[in-house]
């Protein structure tokens, strides 16, 4: 194995000391002199209504109020808070049906908590008190909480651009018959000995990152609009804000503050348009908004819930002859990335197993619910819940071991990936499954749990998954990186990649140091301001280490090449014959023919002229490495999760006992960071399986937008976790690395459902799997 200096080590994370002392600066912690405070006034009376009248006059007279805003007082231009539109060509945008259907403030309320007015005051409290004096009359409209209701004949149309409230379906001609897949599924089913088929519901899960949404904007005297935000995608937000306010990008500056968690909720914009519009209306004054926690469930995008139907046919020997599936998701009130999850949910089906034929259809429908967008996994957890349960149902009927079936039928190196035409270049799923099964003692437990009696029943389940590293070829992949070598041969690496806490800045720094051959402490980063670095899409699609890492490697190689070329000139040697060790460059085999990196770097910065000759003493020019990087692959990671749990058949309660999260990582650049992603992903995946769902009254009001009522798994709810990390370097990833950001969340969903199936021989088809649903299913089973 290659010896690395820093790659493969759990280096201490860059910003961690600032975080344990609380000194890391989040947006809410910034108080610029003269700051005014904004409040977005939201509709909490209705989930679907027209504003008939809005009277702000009393609010305007309240003490401390600087200005009040109705929708027409700010730009009424339509926009789309997601940034998918910046990542596809215009043709593709048309084909995907991307639309702009949001306004900063609206007179047409499409979900509980839609924004109808804004107040700017000298204090938060003054803005809050003034908001109570707003008089508003509504004309209520029928409320639609699922696709079946909103698509019915005669339903109120959310936007004239999308007839029947259908936001999206897989478009012809890219997807003949509006389906993705291969072969003839109908013919395939004719060969089947058994068919498994069911209707499922997947829930509206919320990222619930710990930092509530806070933003600051300032439109200064020079006409520069600055916005402080914890967006995951500063360089994609910059052109969106510029477009919305008709400004050149040179007059829009996005300052990324420390991101207090994202998980997709900050993919694109949340209240950036609002705070920027208010700042432009009140030039010269910094405007700040602190969104209360309970608003986060209403304003930032959630996971797409929906109805998922799937049917699979198998021969007696387990051969999967065909799969037919349809995912109809509930979009919420606005389009956002309406095409994304409807497509990817099928992509994850197509990427996982060697079905004889596959036909997947995906559709999105508007509903009167808060918006849906990106959430860690992006359609994959929904698919995992459905696909992996039906695979286990078939294995049960055919008496085949679920681990063995998956080893035999998962896609492998050379097979088409989640997007046709990009075959897998690496896959260690067999090893992950074998090691995972060993770690949880799979065979013995399956045997033992097959013969249980009594109130408490144990179960052990498995699920596998494939994800992606970046979103090519469907979406743009591009990161720019520059590496500047200081005169003392230390490096400043500049990029706009986001660290949402996952540790990407730390791992990218390790990649830079390893590539340059410099000690880690000699590499510093320049990050956080949209003006300081070149383009980067932002953090999504588990791309940052993979694509950002590729860009950092390429830029560092460029700097190193320049360094070695100068050394070659000075040593009168061929650059290919040189080596760098401890920042000394020497000719291979002749350790005495050497020059230090600092001598070259210093000579570049200080090319003093020789007074006698007039020529410089050294090779002039500060070394600057550069890359504008587009990856050639998306190197999907594979994962297998094993969950063991106990079901109390009298109460329906589930106790998680143990989980093994296995992952085909390619290479762990920083093992502690990888473990952190898997363990954190597990908390969200297990929560999706068991407890997390946003609930609505029939009137569309959200019932549980608080941490007490939106139940996430706490420290005592979590099982014992074992990570199985398999390193099988991928030919395309930086140092062989593949992604891990989203992957840890996915398979725990299916594995939990399958463990319950193993325990009580019942499959629950609706997420989350609550004690009530378990008891109901047990009662129905006994009644039959």
């Amino acid at each position, binding site marked *: 194995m290659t010896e690395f200096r820093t790659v493969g080590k*759990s280096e*201490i*994370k860059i*910003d*961690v*000391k*600032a*975080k*344990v*002392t*609380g*000194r*890391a*600066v*989040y947006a*809410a*912690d910034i*108080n610029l002199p003269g700051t005014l405070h904004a409040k977005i006034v939201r509709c909490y009376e209705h989930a679907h209504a027209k504003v008939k009248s809005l009277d702000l006059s009393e609010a305007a007279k309240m003490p401390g109020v600087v200005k009040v805003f109705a929708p027409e007082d700010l730009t009424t231009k339509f926009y789309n808070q997601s940034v998918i539109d910046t990542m596809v060509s215009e043709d593709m945008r048309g084909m995907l049906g991307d639309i702009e259907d949001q306004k900063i403030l609206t007179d047409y309320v499409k979900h509980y908590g839609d924004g109808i007015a804004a107040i700017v005051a000298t204090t938060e409290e003054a803005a809050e008190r003034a908001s109570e004096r707003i008089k508003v009359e509504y004309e209520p409209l029928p409320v639609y909480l699922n696709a079946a209701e909103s698509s019915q004949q005669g339903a109120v149309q959310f936007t004239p651009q999308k007839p029947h409230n259908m936001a999206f379906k897989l478009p012809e001609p890219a997807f003949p018959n509006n389906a993705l897949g291969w072969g003839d599924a109908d013919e395939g089913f004719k060969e089947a000995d058994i068919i498994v088929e069911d209707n499922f519901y997947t829930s509206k899960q919320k*990222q*619930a*990152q*710990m*930092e*509530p949404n806070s933003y600051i904007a300032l439109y200064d005297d020079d006409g520069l609009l600055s916005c402080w935000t914890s967006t995951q995608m500063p360089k994609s937000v910059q052109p969106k804000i510029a477009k919305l306010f008709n400004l050149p990008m040179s007059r829009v500056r996005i300052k990324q503050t*420390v*991101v*207090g*968690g*994202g*998980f997709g909720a900050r993919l694109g914009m949340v209240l950036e348009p609002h705070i920027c519009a208010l700042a432009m209306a009140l030039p010269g004054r910094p405007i700040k908004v*602190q969104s*209360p*926690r309970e608003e986060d469930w209403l304003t930032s995008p959630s996971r797409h819930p929906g109805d998922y139907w799937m049917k699979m046919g198998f021969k007696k020997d387990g051969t999967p002859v065909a799969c037919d599936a349809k995912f109809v998701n509930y979009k919420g009130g606005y389009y956002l990335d309406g095409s994304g999850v409807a497509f990817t949910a099928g992509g994850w089906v197509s990427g996982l197993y060697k079905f004889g034929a596959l036909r997947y259809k995906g559709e999105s429908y508007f509903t009167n619910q808060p918006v849906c967008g990106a959430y860690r996994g992006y359609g994959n957890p929904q698919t995992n819940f459905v696909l992996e349960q039906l695979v286990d149902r078939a294995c049960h009927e055919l008496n085949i071991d679920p681990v063995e079936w998956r080893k035999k039928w998962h896609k492998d190196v050379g097979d088409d990936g989640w997007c046709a035409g990009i075959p897998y270049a690496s896959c260690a799923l067999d090893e992950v499954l074998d090691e995972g099964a060993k770690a949880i003692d799979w065979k013995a437990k399956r045997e033992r749990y097959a013969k249980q009696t009594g109130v408490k029943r144990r179960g052990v389940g498995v699920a596998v998954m494939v994800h992606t590293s970046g979103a090519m070829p469907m979406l743009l992949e591009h990161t720019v990186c520059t590496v500047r070598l200081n005169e003392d041969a230390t490096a400043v690496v500049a990029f706009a990649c986001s660290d*949402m*806490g*996952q*540790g990407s800045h730390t791992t990218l720094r390790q990649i830079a140091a390893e590539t340059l051959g410099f000690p880690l402490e000699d590499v510093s980063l320049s990050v956080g301001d949209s003006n300081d670095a070149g383009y980067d899409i932002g953090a999504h699609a588990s791309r940052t280490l993979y694509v950002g890492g590729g860009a950092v490697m390429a830029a560092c190689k460029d700097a190193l090449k320049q360094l070695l070329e100068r050394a070659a000139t000075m040593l009168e040697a061929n650059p290919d014959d040189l080596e760098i060790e401890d920042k000394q460059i020497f000719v291979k085999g002749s350790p005495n023919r050497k020059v230090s990196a600092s001598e070259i770097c210093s000579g570049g910065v200080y090319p003093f002229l020789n007074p006698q000759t007039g020529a410089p003493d050294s090779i002039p020019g500060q070394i600057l490495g550069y890359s504008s990087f587009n990856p050639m692959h998306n190197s999907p990671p594979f994962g297998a999760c094993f969950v063991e749990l106990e079901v109390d058949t009298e109460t329906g309660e589930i106790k998680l006992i143990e989980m093994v999260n296995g992952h085909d990582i390619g290479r762990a650049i920083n093992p*502690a*960071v990888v*473990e*952190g992603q898997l*363990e*954190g*992903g*597990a*908390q*969200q995946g297990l929560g999706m399986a068991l407890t997390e769902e946003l609930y609505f009254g029939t009137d569309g009001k959200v019932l549980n937008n*608080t*941490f*007490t009522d939106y139940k*996430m798994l*706490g*420290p*005592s709810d*979590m099982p014992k*976790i074992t990570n199985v990390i398999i390193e099988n370097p991928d030919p395309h990833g930086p140092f062989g690395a593949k992604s891990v950001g989203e992957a840890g969340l996915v398979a725990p969903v299916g594995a939990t459902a399958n463990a319950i199936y193993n325990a009580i021989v019942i499959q629950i088809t609706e997420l989350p799997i609550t004690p009530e649903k378990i008891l109901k299913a047990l009662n129905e089973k006994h009644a039959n």
Partner: protein
Amino acid sequence: MKKHNISLQVNGAVHEVTIQPNKTLLDVLRDELNMPETKYGCGTGECGACTVLVDDQKVINSCLTLAATMDGKSITTAAGLQTADGTLHPVQEAFVENAAVQCGYCTPGMVLKSVGLLKKNPNPSEDEIREWLEGNICRCTGYEKIVTAVQLAGKKIAQADS
């Protein structure tokens, strides 16, 4: 609204502040004293991001505590756990070494909550740590590395005391 004069000792320094009676300790720390290391996470005592240590013994949610009731008390925030020469508290050190921090927003509260546990129970079991941390939400780590960091911190404190 009648204002109150109170005296708060924060991280060793005494502050005389004049406050409205409806202001919480969190409001006063962040807005009046300009100490943003204590975080607003929910404002309703559900998440623990605003946890502070009172009189070096008891941990509380500063978002649920009216500042006026804290007159004369000594408050420690996450920044105050660090000594003047920059040395971290053993709990902070353990969080750093054990990679128990991701986005960091829950971290100041999580660190102080852990300090509160170790003051009561210097050698807690894993179950005791998990139960004690129930009021503090972390959405990044799955709690695994936080729990092991608290165990590590307990050992560090025991070593320093021996």
